[in-house]
């Protein structure tokens, strides 16, 4: 069976959007794909040693809320201080109770399966991200580095 390959550009740094890139990458690796992930802009949050991701109900009408809160809670209410922390806490509890892996666990599974992770050098400079805050297993690079992998890849996703 010839080896297939996948590349993913991960651009989002929230708890909910951390899942698609890591789920797809870890699964593709398990299926024998050669996987490269490129983390840019807010996606760089997913490479922090200390993963402290949140989910926001703000501007997110698709987000289910417990006890049917979304039915009667005014949209502006989602901007109340503490709302984000509360929703993040609830989401983390739900994730645990449903047997869904944590983001850190999925990221470790990716690393164990030799998924290649590239952090965007430009974003690191732009946001003054400290190298020591990022996990050690990554390489840094730019758009050309991404295309080196994407140009010969079977599947390229932007998330």
């Amino acid at each position, binding site marked *: *069976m010839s080896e297939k390959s996948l590349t993913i550009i991960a651009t989002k740094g929230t708890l909910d959007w951390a899942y698609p890139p890591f*789920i797809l990458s*870890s*699964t593709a690796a*398990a*299926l*024998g794909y050669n996987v490269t992930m490129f983390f840019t802009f807010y996606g760089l949050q997913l490479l922090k040693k200390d993963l402290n991701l949140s989910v926001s109900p703000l501007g997110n009408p698709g987000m289910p809320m417990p006890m049917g809160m979304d039915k009667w809670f005014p949209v502006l209410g989602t901007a109340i201080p503490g709302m984000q922390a509360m929703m993040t806490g609830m989401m983390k509890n739900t994730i645990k109770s*449903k*047997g*869904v*892996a944590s983001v850190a666990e999925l990221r470790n*599974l990716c690393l164990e399966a030799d998924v290649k992770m590239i952090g965007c050098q430009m974003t690191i400079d732009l946001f003054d991200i400290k190298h020591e805050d990022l996990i050690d297993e990554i390489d840094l690079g730019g758009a050309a580095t991404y295309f080196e992998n994407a140009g010969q890849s079977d599947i390229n996703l932007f998330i």
Partner: protein
Amino acid sequence: MSDFNQELDARGLNCPLPILRAKKTLNGMNAGEILKIIATDPGSVKDFEAFATQTGNQLMDSSEANGEFHFFLKKGG
């Protein structure tokens, strides 16, 4: 089916963990050996079929009883 070399309890785990754990367990097994997997994720039924098709491991049997799914995977060569 009752004969198997190793058993993996993936009950309570959700996508993609049953597949990832199965892959990891298969890595430590020899070609031709059989891995039994017990899962509760209904999505795992389709996923183990797809996993077998794409990896060259053979899904010998797939069954459901009391909300649990049993899979028998034969490791490919």
